[in-house]
């Protein structure tokens, strides 16, 4: 870079780097602190002043993992993966209909889909709760799978459509001239080309459903409770279990944190429903 070659350019680069890193570390600090607390013993985590230097221990992580946490974690996995698969199964054909072979009033259909994403949960909460109660689906992970699918499907349709639009139309024309059937068209042409789109959509669906709390807290109690519900147990102040709390919070956050970090590029596109690439 020309600007950093000159001494003043270098100095300003160093200055702004320091400022930038300070800001970033302020934002990252709570995450770092969560990790650190998780590796402490309980007395170290609940000391005043806080313990800064300590010998890390895996004790609390082991306790959380060997205790009652795993079923919550597994429920979260079932709800997230199940609903993500459903979103892909329902969303891909819909996105195809909107992108490749546009139906009439495509804009209206798109508008309709996304408006349901921003319908507050207040809109449908009570009837869904009553329905789940009558169908004996309360505290059943299947109810969460269905609800998370509802939450993520509009996003999935938009996102998949934005990826489908990038496929050159000639490819489909060529397939059609060859006499390829609809299924063939989907499997042989669409799926391989939008593999990145499927990944981005899955990522966003996983993030939203894994972290979801409102429906989880109202529709489940014990059998189907997910990871965030496990964390609720810590607010009722049953003693000072800060290290255990931090270890559990770390484990509960890990899947989404890793997925988001690995797929950073897809994150922004997914969050804006394909509008920003």
């Amino acid at each position: 870079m020309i600007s950093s070659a000159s001494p003043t350019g270098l100095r300003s680069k160093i200055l702004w780097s320091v400022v930038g890193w300070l800001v970033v570390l302020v934002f990252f600090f709570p995450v770092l602190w969560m990790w650190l607390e998780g590796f402490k013993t309980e007395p170290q985590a609940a000391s005043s002043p806080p313990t800064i230097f300590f010998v890390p221990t895996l004790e609390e992580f082991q306790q959380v993992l060997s205790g009652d946490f795993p079923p919550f974690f597994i429920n979260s996995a079932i709800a997230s993966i199940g609903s993500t698969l459903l979103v892909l199964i329902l969303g891909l054909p819909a996105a195809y209909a909107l992108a490749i072979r546009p139906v009439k009033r495509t804009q209206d259909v798109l508008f309709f889909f996304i408006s349901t994403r921003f319908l507050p949960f207040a809109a449908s909460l009570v009837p869904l709760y009553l329905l789940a109660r009558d169908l004996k689906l309360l505290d059943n992970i299947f109810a969460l799978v269905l609800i998370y699918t509802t939450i993520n499907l509009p996003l999935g349709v938009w996102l998949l459509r934005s990826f489908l639009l990038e496929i050159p139309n000639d490819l489909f024309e060529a397939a059609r001239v060859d006499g390829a059937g609809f299924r063939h068209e989907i499997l042989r042409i669409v799926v391989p080309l939008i593999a990145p789109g499927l990944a981005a959509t899955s990522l966003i669906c996983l993030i939203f459903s894994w972290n979801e709390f409102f429906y989880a807290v109202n529709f489940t109690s014990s059998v189907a409770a997910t990871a965030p519900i496990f964390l609720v147990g810590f607010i009722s102040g049953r003693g000072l279990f800060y290290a255990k709390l931090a270890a559990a919070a770390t484990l509960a956050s890990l899947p989404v944190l890793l997925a988001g970090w690995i797929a950073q590029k897809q994150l922004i596109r997914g969050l804006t429903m394909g509008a920003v690439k």
Partner: protein
Amino acid sequence: MNSTGRSILPVVGNGGAREPTAASVARRDTWLRRLPLLPAFVYVIALTQIPFVLTIYYSLFSWNLLKPGSFQFAGADNYARLLTDEPIRTAVLNTVVLTISVIAISVVLGLAIASLLNSEVFGKGLMRTLMIAPFLIMPTAGALIWKDTLLNPLFGLLPNLLTPFGLGRVDWVNRFPMAAVVAVEVWRWTPFMMLIILAGLQSQNPEILEAAKVDGASALQAFRRITLPLVRPFIELGALLGSLFVVQTFDSIYMLTYGGPGEDTTNIPFLLYIVAFQGFNIGQASAIGVVAVIMTTVVATFALRTLFSIFHVEARR
């Protein structure tokens, strides 16, 4: 985007038995195109639209699940109570305060940090990676960490750090409940704003900025006249999408303050939770739901307009 742009010849077979008329082929083709849309469409209608109609219906009834036989037509009573009931007005006000302050602060911070990450600094990639962590952390986990390990007046890090300044042992969450909720939500949403605004900044042609500098524009002038207009749609998009999420804030309130003290941090979603799942007042909860929908629709309309305008810009490129 329109269907005339893609000429699709009907490929459905004419098996030879009889020549299909042009109209029937066209009709069949239309249905073939709609068919893949149908499952998703039906699913969304079944789980959002029909329940919403039921919500409107229930909102006209006085109905408490804990009182058997209390299902009675109540007309607009539930809505009348919305206007007179103190907790509900507080909740509306809290929702507005929370949403506006979180969005305003996180947009400003997000813009500043995005600008930093877009300039010449060391370790951009790692900075960005660390920066998005607060957004990815499970919100319940994040709120819990803030409350118990950072802000806790006895063992929290912040009160201990502030002790030398005479501010130790301050119970921040209890003394300033709304500020605490706003702080945690800003921590979570700033990375979101930063990501969107950074994408806008990176779509900018650096040569134009160089040219402006050659022409003698100061950094501030260049930012105001060139950069800001360019990233404005991205800021708008971030603010509007963000506000649609922040309006629904529930996790951090539940974990940090449980809506209290009193009703100081009760927003609409939290009030709904209290009315529906602590009081089991189905009629009143439904009326709150209807009002929440109306409020959200206003914001969402603007959000969608912005979204579409960005799509049009993308299409023109």
